[in-house]
Structure formats: structure tokens, C-alpha cells
């Protein structure tokens, strides 16, 4: 079967299964909906159900094509049977019709952008995140036939509700089929917006709003890729839409899909938990205003939402010890994501590199698009006009939803995080313009469409802004080989293929920057993505920094005496910087006490890494991995009384402003201060630290190293390859793949 056909069948099968599941649920609940509402909502609600089903199959390690095929066929047959035998109750009265001119306007713009988006979605997947972790994880689940405990990538800890649908499509049609599933949400969103607006009697505002969203360059680039932001926007809009219908008709069964979608929002992306907050707020507020009991409706929404949320929470809690991983690591300390990393990551997300000030946000997010990774289109500079919609009750509700769904934006100022609010802002802009300046709205829409079209967007946006650049018909139809298209459009694709060629199937490759792991089956360990990656990076860095900086020796001396436990306590108050110990040695006279198996080592915080301070190599260390706090300690329990008279810590100079105290416990377990003062001296590093670092990586199962020329340590490895003990396997597009000898 030609590749495009199988891709389309795979995506169509996935969307069909979602629609079927949705139809069954909506019918089961006996909801009365207009035809357009049935269509739009059936897909989104069904997507939630289907995602949950795929989660169950993945958890049961039943991810096989045949299982998926059987499940999909069954649900579609069930929906067909139900549809024939029991038609829906008569739909609610249809909304007012659109004037012909407006219909034509919608059809032209919607049609043109649908062609643009369709071929881009069908072409090989080249998006930065889609070709790395979104589909990289999906490919891994397919290889493993379900979830595996992954502790080496924070992206595996994020909720992946949409990835479950990608997984279903990927099993039959690979990368492009997954992207087409997201494309289905992209197409559904404007159709849903228009259907909603027609129902409430504002069809022209619906056209304006729908097209402003649909033609937005960022929405298009995101929606045709294996990302999730447009799906989030679609789900949040569906929640809003269902709540509007519920508010008008009080069909209480509507609260079931509301709750499911609110949970599905979280399952797609953590930040979409705001959908649940919004749903509970609206239901609670409306019922309270109406003096109606509210406990049970709120409980229904919550329970349905939890059905979708709990699986993801439980997965993380059981496997990683943190239900909200990779966040809230202070609340749920664990060895997989570092607190200091989370703090740095959060800081980076709040202030993107290159963003001069928050005052630059509007222009970056709408016009330039380089710093915030995409742009919404210059017309959205007029978004404040939407405030004029406040004079309408509908406008007030839209703007409220826009504000609520943007509440998480300060935590990540990337332009993508504005997409969930965009439908509501767009509708408000449409409503604000239409009554008085109804002739302006089509002009603005036309301008937006032209300015968003790839050929014109390139004239004003930043050179490296994320956007669509053309209609890749030949690539989509595979008239251009996938390999060639991918090599041209995704610079790091060739690296992924080089890894696939050069690294054996069980090989692990350590690297500092992301590589499209959706195109290799080898395990890629990225330095920043996990505590394990942080550790590998720290080990390599140690060999370099210890070469350039002295090694500190901090020594406590005290009268010889028998002790059972020794503890070095950090006493300085909260402050920046960390505390770390490369080696902790205990002495009796001139002799170091040999480390014997009965010893027990402890540390606080980060107890999991304490052995690194007792392994007799300077390239590893115990680190607090969080800013200084009084009470941090490293402890050794000898298991029996030992006579000792000195403790020495070997440390790097890159410490926070630490103050240390030595404490001891006798066999009775009573703690007392043994020494408050210590001497600090410097000594030369031993030889062969680079080689020692490489051996530490090998001891942890890592045998390959990929370095981009832009990596900070690239020159170190290039110029000192012999000292490290590396063999250069391949040099491709500004990167080098080494084998650790």
C-alpha cells in the first residue's frame, strides 16, 4: 500500500475510533445536541475515552497492532450498530444561518489553510519536540508493547494523554499518522467555535474568531505537528461549550463529558488542569447563584475528571515517587529529578533566553516569534479590542475563560502557552468589531490570512521563528524520499540515523542537546532530562574543572576517641549555591579507616547519592542538588565503635557559602559536637581524571557520547580525545559521535 494511503488510513482509523467512542458516550448519556455539536463534541469527548483505553492497554503491556485493530473495529462497529438501531433524540433547533458572503469568506480561508495544513501534517514529521520526545516516547512504548519505567527523561513523566492517541495511530502509520491526529484537533477547533457561535446567535463573530485562530501561524505549525497545544485548546473550548449548553438547558448529564474533558485536559498537558478549575467554578457559581444544591454536580465533574487524571498521577507516584513529576520535587523528594534542576528549568521557562523584558512579549508573541518559539500573527496586536466585548454577557464569559486558561502562562511564557486562550480572545475580537464596524472584520480577517500565509509571514517574522514555510505536496505524497526531506528539514535527523547505524541495539548514548529520538531506537540520555543525566554531566565536568581548579581538603581534627557514627553538618542558613562532597575520609592517626560492608552511609538531602562520597574517586560526588539549608549532612555509621581522630572532606571549590560542624554519636546513640573548626588546604588533582570520568560512565552502562560543536565541552573532547579514551565514530552536521574505549 502506498505510504500516504496507509498513513491516512491509520490517522482516519484513530479519529474514527475516537468519534465512535464519543458517539457511544453521548448517546449513552441521552444528550440532546444540535447536529454540528454532536459532530464536534463526539470527536473530542471520544478522544478522551479512547486515550484512557490506550492508557489501560499500555499499562497492561498490550500495545500490539492486532489488539489496537480489534479495539478500534469493535468500537466503530458498536457505534454503527447503535446509530442504526437507536437514533438520537431530535436535536435542538438549529442556529441562524450565515449570510452567503460570510459563508464564502469562511470557506475560502478555511479551505486554503486546510490544504496548507493537511499537506504539512502528512509530510514526514520534523517538528522539534514532535520528532524528539512526543513521538520518541510513543515509538518506545510501541517497541516495549506498553509503558516501561523510564527514569531518565523528564518528558516521560509528563502526562501524555494525546500521546496515547498518537500511539494508536503510530502503530499503523508511524510519525505522520500521529501528526494527522493532532491535525484533526486543529480542524475541529474552528468548526466547533463556529458551531457554538451560531448556536448562541453570533455566527459572524464565530467566523471571525474561528478564522483568526485557524490561520494563526503558530496554531498552524503546532497543530500539524505531533505536539499537544492545539488539542489542549480544543479540549478547553469543548469544556466551555458544554458548560454553555449545560447552563442554558441544564441537561445534567452534560456534566459527565465536562468532567471527562476536564480530566483529559490535565492528561494532555499539566497546565490544562485549569479546565477542571474552570468547570468546577462555573458549575459551582451557577448553581450557587440559582440557590440550587451543588455538591452532587460538583462531585460528578470531579469524579469524571479524576477518572482521567488518576492514572497519570498514579503512574508517576508508583514509579517515580512524585505524582506531579517533574515538578514539585521539594514536596516529593526523589532521585529522578533534581530540585535545583527544577528551579533552573522553571526560571528558564519564565524568562526565555533572549527575552529582554516582559514588555517585549506582545511583539515577540505576535510578530517576531524567534525568542518565544512561534508567533500568533500581527493581527493579535489588536487583541485589546476584544475588551469591547465586555458589554455583552457572552463576551464577558469568553474573556473570563481566556483569563482563566491563561493563568498558567507566567510559568511558561512561550507563545504556545497562549494558544488555549486564543479561541476566546478571537471570539471576543469578533464580537467587539461586528456591531459597529462590521465591514472592518472581513478586512481584518483577510489581512490576517494574508499575513499568516507562509510566503508573507517570512517577510516580517524573525528568521528562525517556528512556522510553516511551504506546502510540501511532493514530500507528503512521498514523491520525495522521506530520508531526503527529513535530512533537509530536521538538521539533527542524520545524527539520529548515524546513531542507529553505529550504536548497537542495547547501546546508550549520552549527550547534552536533544536529538530526534523518534528516528532511532537507541536509548538517548540527555544531560538535563533527568537526575541520571545530571550526574553523568557532573562526572564529565569534574574531570575538566578539577584540571583547572584546585581540590579543597577540609579537615577536622580532634582527640582520638571511640564513636559509632560521624556526621558532617552544614550549619549556614538558607542561601544560594550548593554543598557537595567528593570524598569523605575518616582517619585514626595517619591511617584512613578502610570502608567495610557493615558501614551505613546516609545524607540529607539527596540520600540516594551518598555512596558517591565514599567510592574513592574524585570525579563523582554527593551533591545537595538544592540551595544551601542549615541541617544538611553527610553521615557514616560504622556499625560498631571505632576510635578515630580526624575526618577529611575532599571538595571542589564550587561550593555555596558553607559552614560545617562535625558531630559524633556514641554507641548509646547520643549526638554531640566533636569539632566546630576545620582547616582548609589545597592539593593537586591526581592524573587521569578524564579517563576516570569515562570509566564512571561505562560503569553506568553508557558507551557512547554525542557532542554538538556548540556544546560547552565539545572542544574539550575534540582536543583531548586521547586523554578521555574515545574513538571518533562519525562526524555529522556539526556533531561528533564517540565510542568510549
Amino acid at each position: 500500500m502506498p505510504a500516504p494511503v496507509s498513513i491516512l488510513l491509520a490517522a482516519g482509523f484513530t479519529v474514527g475510533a475516537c468519534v465512535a467512542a464519543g458517539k457511544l458516550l453521548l448517546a449513552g448519556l441521552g444528550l440532546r445536541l444540535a447536529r454540528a455539536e454532536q459532530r464536534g463534541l463526539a470527536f473530542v469527548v471520544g478522544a478522551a475515552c479512547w486515550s484512557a483505553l490506550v492508557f489501560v492497554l499500555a499499562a497492561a503491556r498490550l500495545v500490539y497492532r492486532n489488539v489496537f485493530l480489534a479495539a478500534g473495529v469493535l468500537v466503530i462497529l458498536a457505534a454503527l450498530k447503535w446509530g442504526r438501531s437507536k437514533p438520537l433524540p431530535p436535536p435542538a433547533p438549529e442556529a441562524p444561518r450565515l449570510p452567503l458572503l460570510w459563508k464564502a469568506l469562511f470557506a475560502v480561508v478555511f479551505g486554503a489553510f486546510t490544504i496548507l495544513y493537511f499537506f504539512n501534517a502528512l509530510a514526514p514529521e520534523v517538528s522539534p519536540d514532535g520528532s524528539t520526545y512526543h513521538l520518541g516516547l510513543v515509538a518506545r512504548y510501541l517497541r516495549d508493547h506498553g509503558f516501561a519505567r523510564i527514569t531518565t527523561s523528564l518528558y516521560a513523566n509528563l502526562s501524555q494523554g494525546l500521546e496515547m492517541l498518537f500511539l494508536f495511530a503510530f502503530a499503523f502509520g508511524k510519525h505522520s499518522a500521529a501528526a494527522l491526529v493532532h491535525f484533526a484537533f486543529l480542524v475541529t477547533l474552528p468548526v466547533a467555535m463556529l458551531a457554538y457561535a451560531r448556536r448562541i446567535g453570533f455566527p459572524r463573530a464565530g467566523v471571525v474568531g474561528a478564522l483568526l485562530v485557524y490561520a494563526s501561524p503558530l496554531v498552524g505549525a503546532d497543530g500539524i505537528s505531533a505536539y499537544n497545544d492545539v488539542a489542549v485548546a480544543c479540549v478547553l473550548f469543548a469544556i466551555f461549550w458544554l458548560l454553555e449548553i449545560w447552563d442554558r438547558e441544564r441537561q445534567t448529564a452534560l456534566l459527565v463529558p465536562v468532567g471527562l474533558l476536564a480530566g483529559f485536559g490535565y492528561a494532555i498537558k499539566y497546565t490544562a488542569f485549569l479546565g477542571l478549575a474552570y468547570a468546577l467554578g462555573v458549575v459551582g457559581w451557577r448553581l450557587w447563584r440559582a440557590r440550587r444544591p451543588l455538591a452532587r454536580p460538583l462531585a460528578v465533574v470531579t469524579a469524571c475528571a479524576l477518572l482521567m487524571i488518576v492514572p497519570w498521577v498514579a503512574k508517576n507516584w508508583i514509579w517515580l515517587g512524585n505524582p506531579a513529576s517533574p515538578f514539585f520535587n521539594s514536596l516529593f523528594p526523589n532521585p529522578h529529578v533534581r530540585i535545583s534542576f527544577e528551579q533552573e528549568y522553571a526560571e528558564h521557562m519564565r524568562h526565555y533566553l533572549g527575552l529582554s523584558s516582559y514588555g517585549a512579549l506582545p511583539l515577540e508573541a505576535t510578530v517576531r516569534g524567534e525568542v518565544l518559539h512561534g508567533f500568533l500573527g500581527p493581527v493579535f496586536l489588536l487583541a485589546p479590542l476584544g475588551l469591547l466585548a465586555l458589554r455583552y454577557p457572552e463576551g464577558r464569559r469568553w474573556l473570563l475563560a481566556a483569563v482563566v486558561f491563561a493563568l498558567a502562562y507566567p510559568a511558561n511564557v512561550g507563545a504556545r502557552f497562549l494558544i488555549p486562550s486564543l479561541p476566546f480572545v478571537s471570539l471576543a475580537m469578533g464580537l467587539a468589531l461586528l456591531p459597529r464596524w462590521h465591514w472592518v472584520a472581513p478586512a481584518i480577517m483577510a489581512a490576517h490570512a494574508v499575513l499568516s500565509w507562509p510566503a508573507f509571514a517570512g517577510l516580517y517574522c524573525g528568521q528562525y521563528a517556528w512556522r510553516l514555510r511551504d506546502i510540501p505536496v511532493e514530500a507528503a505524497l512521498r514523491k520525495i524520499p522521506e530520508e531526503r526531506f527529513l535530512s533537509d528539514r530536521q538538521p539533527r535527523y542524520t545524527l539520529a540515523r548515524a546513531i542507529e547505524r553505529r550504536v548497537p541495539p542495547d547501546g546508550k548514548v549520552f549527550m547534552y542537546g536533544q536529538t530526534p529520538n523518534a528516528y532511532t531506537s537507541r536509548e538517548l540520555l540527555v544531560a538535563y532530562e533527568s537526575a541520571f543525566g545530571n550526574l553523568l554531566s557532573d562526572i564529565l565536568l569534574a574531570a575538566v574543572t578539577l584540571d583547572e581548579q584546585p581540590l579543597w581538603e577540609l579537615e577536622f581534627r580532634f582527640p582520638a576517641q571511640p564513636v559509632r557514627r560521624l556526621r558532617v553538618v552544614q550549619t549556614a542558613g538558607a542561601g544560594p549555591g550548593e554543598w557537595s562532597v567528593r570524598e569523605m575520609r575518616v582517619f585514626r592517626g595517619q591511617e584512613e579507616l578502610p570502608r567495610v560492608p557493615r558501614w551505613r552511609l546516609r545524607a540529607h538531602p539527596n540520600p540516594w547519592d551518598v555512596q558517591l562520597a565514599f567510592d574513592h574517586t574524585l570525579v563523582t560526588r554527593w551533591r545537595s542538588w538544592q540551595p544551601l539549608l542549615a541541617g544538611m549532612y553527610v553521615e557514616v555509621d560504622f556499625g560498631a565503635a571505632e576510635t578515630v581522630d580526624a575526618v577529611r572532606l575532599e571538595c571542589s571549590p564550587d561550593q555555596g557559602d558553607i559552614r560545617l560542624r562535625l558531630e559524633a554519636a556514641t554507641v548509646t546513640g547520643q549526638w554531640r559536637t566533636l569539632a566546630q573548626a576545620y582547616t582548609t588546604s589545597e592539593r593537586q588533582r591526581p592524573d587521569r581524571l578524564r579517563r576516570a570520568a569515562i570509566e564512571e560512565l561505562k560503569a553506568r552502562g553508557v558507551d557512547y557520547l554525542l557532542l554538538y560543536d556548540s556544546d560547552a565541552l565539545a572542544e574539550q573532547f575534540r582536543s583531548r580525545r586521547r586523554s578521555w579514551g574515545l574513538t571518533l565514530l562519525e562526524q555529522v552536521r556539526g556533531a561528533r559521535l564517540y565510542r568510549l574505549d
Partner: protein
Amino acid sequence: MSNSTSAAAAIQAAAGFGRDTYGTLALPVVAHRALYPLGLVLLLLSSCGAPAPEGYAPPLQRRPPPGPEPRPVGSFVAMSDADADAHIIRDVSPGSDGSPWRWTFQRPELRFWVETATRQKLVADFVIAAATFRETGPVTISFFVNGRLLARQHCPKPGKYHLEKEVPAAWLRTDTFTIVAAEADKLWVSPADGARLGFILSRIGFVS
């Protein structure tokens, strides 16, 4: 009753729908009742995280890697060597995979590590390209070792050249890099992009 209708009824019944009563709890009561379980949940959450054992035994004690620190670079390099880049400091074109030659620019510099300073000869194999020679005419290339002029090689025609010249022991050190530089008296300047090319380098370094 059909299956679908009964399924609908079951869902509705589970959700408490199908009748007009919603329940009896008012907001303040709900809030009050929810407070204790919420507090309990928060307490549980705050005490949880990944478990750590009571203590860890000392790990396997590492041994330093055997042998002396390898030199970062050798005393001689061919441009086709895998670690050719490690020898290059500046003004030598990046090599494509395994290519035996590279263009030099204004003042190419390479670094070497010699194990002994005595009886070392600087050896270089290079080519004057016919295409550049047409513009530059005869060229003279000066070779420097640690900043001192060692030799001048006159190249009256295009083609291959071989330089071999003994280096005074006092010019060399065995505890750090030895830097070799070369300078052509005339460079070819590209009319298209202004790139300045010297000669084509194949091999260079010290032999004893």
C-alpha cells in the same frame, strides 16, 4: 429496555441524574466537610516522596586508571587521521570524513607533543594547487616552530612539496605543546566571497 437505554440509565443513575434532586449539601457545609480530608491528603502528600533505604553500604572502591596520562596529541598528524582536528589550532579548513587533505588559510597553526627534544625533524607534505598558482604565481612558505622561523620553502610551480628540516633541541619542550605555524607570502583571494587560501596540507609534524 434495550442495552443502550439501560446503559444510559445506569450512567445517569450512577451520577444521580434522571431526577430533579441534586443532593442537600450547601457550600459552607461542603467546604467544612472537605477540610479534614483535604488536610489529611496534604499531610500524606507532604510526607511522601521516593523512599530511601535506612542507609547505604560503602560502594565498590574505584581504582585510578592504570598508566600515565596519554598525550592529548601526537608528534605527527595526517589530515586523514581521526584526531586531526585535535592538532589544529587555527586557519585549517574543517575536514570532511577521512579526507586526506585540507586547505590552509592566512596562518595555519597546529600543535604537537614531542616526547624528546633532541634530533627532531619537522616534516610537512603539502600541495600548491594549480588553480591558485595561476593567480599567485610562485610562492614561498615560511615554517615556524614555537614562534621561531625554521625554514622557507620556495614553490616555483604547482604540485607536491616535501619539507624536512632538523629542529634545534632548544626550541622544543617535552612538557607542553609545540606549536607549528606556516605562512605563505601570497594568498589566493576568492573573487566570489573573499576567502583567502594558501596551500593544501596533507601531513605535518615531527619525526626523529
